[in-house]
């Protein structure tokens, strides 16, 4: 990058400011190195994207093309047959649209509540000193270890004690209070200046008002990030082990059921996979710059 910049400077007088910025960061970079890095990243990128790409291509293939040997990585006559078939597979009396509705319903409820509770708690932990605040802060950092995939057997036990099994609340309640969400929110809110909060306090605003009128509007990147994480988490959450009633199952469970039918149903399986993977990808694309800004504050300091 730097060598390119250097040659352009020799030829023309170009935007000096831009050049300076570029030069600053890329002091020790060479063009050859950059190309090498690009090739390495591309190869690895292909491994990451391939399954998603393959699912995408397969989902648009008509039956004749699905069973061609060897499988082709392109589609000759794309069709929406698999997607329309997908709506027919639905088991029993429940149409697939119901599962899609369930997924969106659960995801949206979880996301809204997750952002709400994390904003309230994050503000208090970042900005207010009270007896116990230190201990709670330490517990939150440790609890980052215990994601729901580690604790779910024990969670299952607690939920069955609370008779939440086969209750739609089981898809919602455990996913609201995420320690990752609170942690990111707290980190981001602690960068907000105390003087703003002090000023509001002097004006007689209560904590809740300070939080929602001053601190939250200044933490938009963190909120977007939380939305992304909460959305992904609960959109991908497979409640198959706790929800048995058909009318409350969500898409990941259905996806697993359909794919269990094996290669014969692959068109439909891949169509479901595409439906499942599109929403989180779109949400991330919209908000990705916010994520980077928030994650920059994510470090754990002693």
């Amino acid at each position, binding site marked *: 990058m730097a060598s390119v910049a250097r040659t352009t400077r020799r030829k023309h007088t170009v935007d000096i400011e831009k050049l300076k910025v570029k030069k600053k960061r890329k002091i020790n970079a060479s063009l050859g190195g950059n190309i090498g*890095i690009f090739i390495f990243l591309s190869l690895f990128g292909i491994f990451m994207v391939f399954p998603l790409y393959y699912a995408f291509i397969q989902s648009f293939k008509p039956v004749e093309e699905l069973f061609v040997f060897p499988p082709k990585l392109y589609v000759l006559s794309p069709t929406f047959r698999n997607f329309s078939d997908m709506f027919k597979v639905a088991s029993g009396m429940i149409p697939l649209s119901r599962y899609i509705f369930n997924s969106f319903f659960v995801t949206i409820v979880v996301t809204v509540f997750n952002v709400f509770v994390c904003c309230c708690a994050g503000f208090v932990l970042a900005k207010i000193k009270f007896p116990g605040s230190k201990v709670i802060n330490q517990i939150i950092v440790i609890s980052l270890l215990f994601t729901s995939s580690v604790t779910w057997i024990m969670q299952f036990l607690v939920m069955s004690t609370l008779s939440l099994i086969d209750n739609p609340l089981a898809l919602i309640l455990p996913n609201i209070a995420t320690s990752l969400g609170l942690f990111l929110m707290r980190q981001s809110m602690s960068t907000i200046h105390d003087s703003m909060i002090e000023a509001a306090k002097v004006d007689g605003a209560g904590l809740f008002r300070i939080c929602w009128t001053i601190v939250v509007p200044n933490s938009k990147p963190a909120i977007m990030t939380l939305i992304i994480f909460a959305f992904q988490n609960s959109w991908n959450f497979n409640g198959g082990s706790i929800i048995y009633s058909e009318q409350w199952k969500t898409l990941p469970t259905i996806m697993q059921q359909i794919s269990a039918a094996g*290669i014969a149903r692959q068109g439909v399986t891949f169509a479901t996979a595409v439906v499942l993977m599109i929403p989180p990808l779109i949400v991330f694309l919209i908000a990705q710059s916010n994520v980077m800004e928030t994650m920059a504050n994510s470090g754990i300091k002693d």
Partner: protein
Amino acid sequence: MSTNDKVPANKQGYWKYTFHMMRMNAGAYGMLAPFMILFIVFLVIPVLLSLPIGFTNFDMAHFPKFVGMSNFYTLFLNDDVFMIAIKNTLIMAVFTGPLSYVLSFILAWLINEMHPFLKTFFTFVFYAPSMTTSVYIIWQLLLSGDSYGYFNAVLLDLGILNTPVQWLTDTKYILIMVIIVQLWISMGAGFLALRAGFQNIDPSMYEAGAIEGIKNRWQELFLITVPSMGPQLLFAAVLQISGMFTVGIVGQSLLGIPSTDYSAHTVMNHATFFGWIKYEMGYASAICFVLFAAMLIVNHFITKLLSKYTD
């Protein structure tokens, strides 16, 4: 804490003062409550319960009876499958823990060397699988044991294989396949944190470094970048630990429980098998407790290891 200097010396005064401060901050507790209630019910209690229930023979139907250490004795002395599970977990942990951690660090670093547009593009590409974790089930079709599975088809077509390989049931391949899928979904929030960490570093540091005689990207990386990224490194490590002890979850959906000859059976699968399939919650809790303890120990060491960078 600005209040420290005002704390009265005698004990009774201290408690009085604490209560006073608690009453003063009632609003703070109120705002913390919605999070804390859910957090305690669905995270703290499940984790803490694993020990007391591990001492019982709880089966979800009858009132638990105290059985002392017998669950733990059985686990370590009489349960051969648990030993297999530990072995598998350790093998997988090496790949999905340190390896994937170093990999995500290297990828984050290399991406950061790219043009801004490519940065966004590659970040998206690498993060995409972990956004779509419920989709990893498509690996079942990619690795399908007949000639319609993609990998079999390609390898048969190229003449490398003569007969389709049962990637997901042949004990020779199961473990490696689970590791591949796990690596595929492992570029998660930790990866994003590292990416952001690289972006965070003040460019003037590199300038200063260049003046001091730093010659190439490697020196830059180890002398400037790593030391100034401690907090992010620790954050990513913490997330990685939880990933590395739960590798079994992927195998569970791909292979079912238990996998052929327990060849991809992990500690987490063992807990699932006893807790969720056999309803032997007491035993499952004991397994979970061992798992949690192992995680905390690993976490302690990683924190110690990275502590010189995090101040």
